């Protein structure tokens, strides 16, 4: 049967099980859009293509499936770039489809022409320029396969307008054309045995649980492993939720704004078992003094990550779930009570978290907001955060029990990520309670997507942690630039009125006792709700390991405040 290239695009997507795409039409992608109504695919019209990319990313992170973004050539395509780079850094499976000018005028600086495959080359797993209709279907099928296989990531397919328009004979039943390529060779049993021997011999082992645990669905396996070995588990930012926060062996987050005792435990450990994490500089601090007492086991699906930042003793190449299962079967059952009690001791001086020592003085602290939000949502919400102070406070005070309950831009640290990513997540998880936690700065970068929430009738709760500053930059200015607050004071619109202008409910909270009422009202409201939390303006995130410092060199909250037993 004859098909157009445009039809081939949607047939490939239907074949991949795609139900929702996020996009924005324009000249070079119009033939594809014209063919869309013939297919059971919901198109979500975004307000800016960056939003489309973040939505596809958020959808992917919330579901584990491949997210899809669509844009036109030129500016439409370049607007996707930040979202693609975000997905690349956090290994999020995504396929971006862009229209391109007709092949006859490629390379002539035609209207809305950009060499977009040249632009996205270093920020995609792979990309394609398709100029013939018959190549569209196999290319897209291959793109989906690449996006989700191995270490997942974004794949970009740029399709010329004439390829969309041309007709050809499509036989999808023949399937995609096989291409050459390698499969990851998992590490041999001998390496697993070596790793198990290291674990058995260790007195102070520590699991570093990363995004790979979440991606590979290895949470239950990790609980089993930790309980059998008595190994405490620390998480990276993207690993939060991969191991239940309430588990006795859960330590919390490591790194720059990690728990003090976690960073101390890393420096004291004699074995690190790194599972699906990549020793990012925000996690290690100064490399030359990082975990000097520890042997290291690195479970990693991407061989190019081995020995990149931290030299390891045993590298286990493969999927985290596979490795954890294999290791659990090989290790001895141990209690390790001496090590556990030592960590409890270390916790001692910092166990009274800042939240409990913040006096209830009528002032509203971000920590209060996050703590109460955790309590009022019973810790079961899917939280999507933006980037900055609020992101770290969320990581510290919202206890995640389940994988895929926190979505955040870790590697690239993309401000403006939260709202569109939450919209994407909404389509993946229609029944879950979703909260956006964003700062007043980042929220304004993509606030236009409130309009998308209104048009698509979406239910998302938005908590703006509004401190009138670009808070994290202000904090660095306070600590490292003599409090010269250059370009960080921020004037925002009235967020309540902004919500109302979109036909949405807007609420304002200025004191702690108002938090519960506002959160409850948001939970009960039918549509998207924006809550403007007016918090302390010059509060900082503690503890903090300054960039490239030893993990023991933490900046602590300077004025210990009185504990108030009244805090919930």
């Amino acid at each position, binding site marked *: 049967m004859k098909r157009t290239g445009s039809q081939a695009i949607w047939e490939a997507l239907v074949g991949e099980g795609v139900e929702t795409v996020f996009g924005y039409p324009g000249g070079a992608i119009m033939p594809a859009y014209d063919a869309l109504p013939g297919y059971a695919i919901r198109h979500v019209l975004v307000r800016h293509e960056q939003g489309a990319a973040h939505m596809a990313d958020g959808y992917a992170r919330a579901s584990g499936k491949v997210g899809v973004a669509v844009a036109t050539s030129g500016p439409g395509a370049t607007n996707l770039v930040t979202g693609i780079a975000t997905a690349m850094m956090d290994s999020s499976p995504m396929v971006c489809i862009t229209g391109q000018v007709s092949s006859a005028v490629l390379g002539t600086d035609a209207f809305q022409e950009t060499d977009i495959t040249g632009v996205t080359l270093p920020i995609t*797993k792979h990309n394609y320029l398709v100029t013939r209709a018959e190549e569209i279907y196999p290319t897209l099928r291959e793109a989906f396969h690449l996006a989700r296989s191995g270490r997942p990531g974004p794949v970009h397919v740029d399709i010329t307008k004439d390829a969309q328009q041309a007709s050809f004979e499509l036989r999808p039943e023949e399937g995609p054309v096989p*291409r050459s*390529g390698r499969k990851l060779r998992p590490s041999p049993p001998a390496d697993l045995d070596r790793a198990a021997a290291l674990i058995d011999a260790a007195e102070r082992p520590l699991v570093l649980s990363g995004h790979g645990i979440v991606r590979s669905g290895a949470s239950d396996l990790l609980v089993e492993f930790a309980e059998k070995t008595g190994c405490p588990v620390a998480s990276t930012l993207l690993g939060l939720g991969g191991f239940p926060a309430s588990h006795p062996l859960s330590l919390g987050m490591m790194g720059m704004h990690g728990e003090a005792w976690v960073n101390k435990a890393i420096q004291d450990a004699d074995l690190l078992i790194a599972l699906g994490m990549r020793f990012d500089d925000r996690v290690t601090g100064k490399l030359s003094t990082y975990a000097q007492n520890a042997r290291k086991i690195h479970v990693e699906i991407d061989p*190019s990550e081995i020995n990149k930042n931290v030299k390891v003793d045993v590298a286990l190449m493969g999927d985290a779930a596979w490795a954890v299962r294999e290791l659990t079967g090989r290790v001895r059952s141990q209690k390790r009570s001496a090590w556990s009690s030592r960590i409890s001791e270390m916790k001692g001086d910092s166990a009274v978290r800042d939240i409990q020592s913040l006096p209830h003085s009528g002032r509203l602290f971000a920590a209060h907001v996050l703590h109460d939000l955790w309590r009022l949502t019973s810790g079961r919400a899917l939280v999507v955060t933006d980037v900055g102070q609020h992101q770290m406070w969320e990581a510290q005070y919202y206890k995640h029990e389940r994988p895929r309950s926190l979505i955040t831009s870790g590697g690239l640290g993309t401000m403006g990520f939260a709202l569109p990513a939450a919209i994407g997540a909404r389509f993946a998880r229609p029944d879950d309670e979703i909260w956006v936690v964003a700062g007043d700065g980042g929220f304004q970068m993509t606030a236009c997507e409130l309009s998308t929430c209104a048009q698509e009738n979406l239910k998302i709760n938005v908590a703006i942690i509004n401190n009138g500053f670009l808070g994290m930059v202000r904090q660095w200015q306070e600590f490292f630039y003599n409090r010269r607050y250059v370009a960080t004071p921020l004037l925002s619109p009235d967020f309540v009125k902004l919500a109302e202008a979109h036909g949405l409910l807007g609420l304002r909270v200025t004191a702690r006792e108002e938090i519960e009422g506002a959160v409850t009202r948001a939970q009960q409201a039918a549509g998207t709700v924006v809550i403007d939390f007016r918090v302390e303006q010059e509060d900082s995130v503690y503890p903090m390991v300054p960039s490239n410092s030893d993990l023991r060199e933490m900046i602590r909250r300077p004025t210990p405040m009185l504990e108030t037993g009244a805090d919930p």
Partner: protein
Amino acid sequence: MKTAVAHTFVATVEDRPGALNRVVSLFRRRGFNIASLTVGTTERPGVSRITLVVNSDADTARRVQANLEKLVDVLQVQDLTGVAAVTREFALVKASVPPEKRAEVLRLCGLFRARVVDVSPATLTVEITGAPDKVDALLEVVRPYGIAEMVRTGPLAMGRGAEVNEVKVQAWMAA
């Protein structure tokens, strides 16, 4: 202190638009230092072969290989460092040689089995094929006369013996 040595890699790549660009872009953004890069066709249609020399320590060299293997268009990467291999380079050298010195330079070139490909009243152009150190040595002896122009291809490499660098094609779409 990590010591940098020359590592030679042979990468077989699918001959697709942009394949070379992907390899070069990888080196640029990861900060790997390319000493030389040579591309050519192979016994298989649609497959090109890139010979790469990288000056790096052993850890970086391993990461170069792992990163190359991540590229979809790259079929296979072989590390020929420290392996019995034939390594050959080609160079064209235009030396400033006045007629009275011509015989002397020709004699030197003869020692290296360099072949004269052009002569003018003031210059002598020779071609040489050999291992990179042989090319280095010829340049060394010609340099005092004055090298007006010179170009080298960078090395090509192939493992010795009956073992063949066979490109394994897997139908991974089925996986």
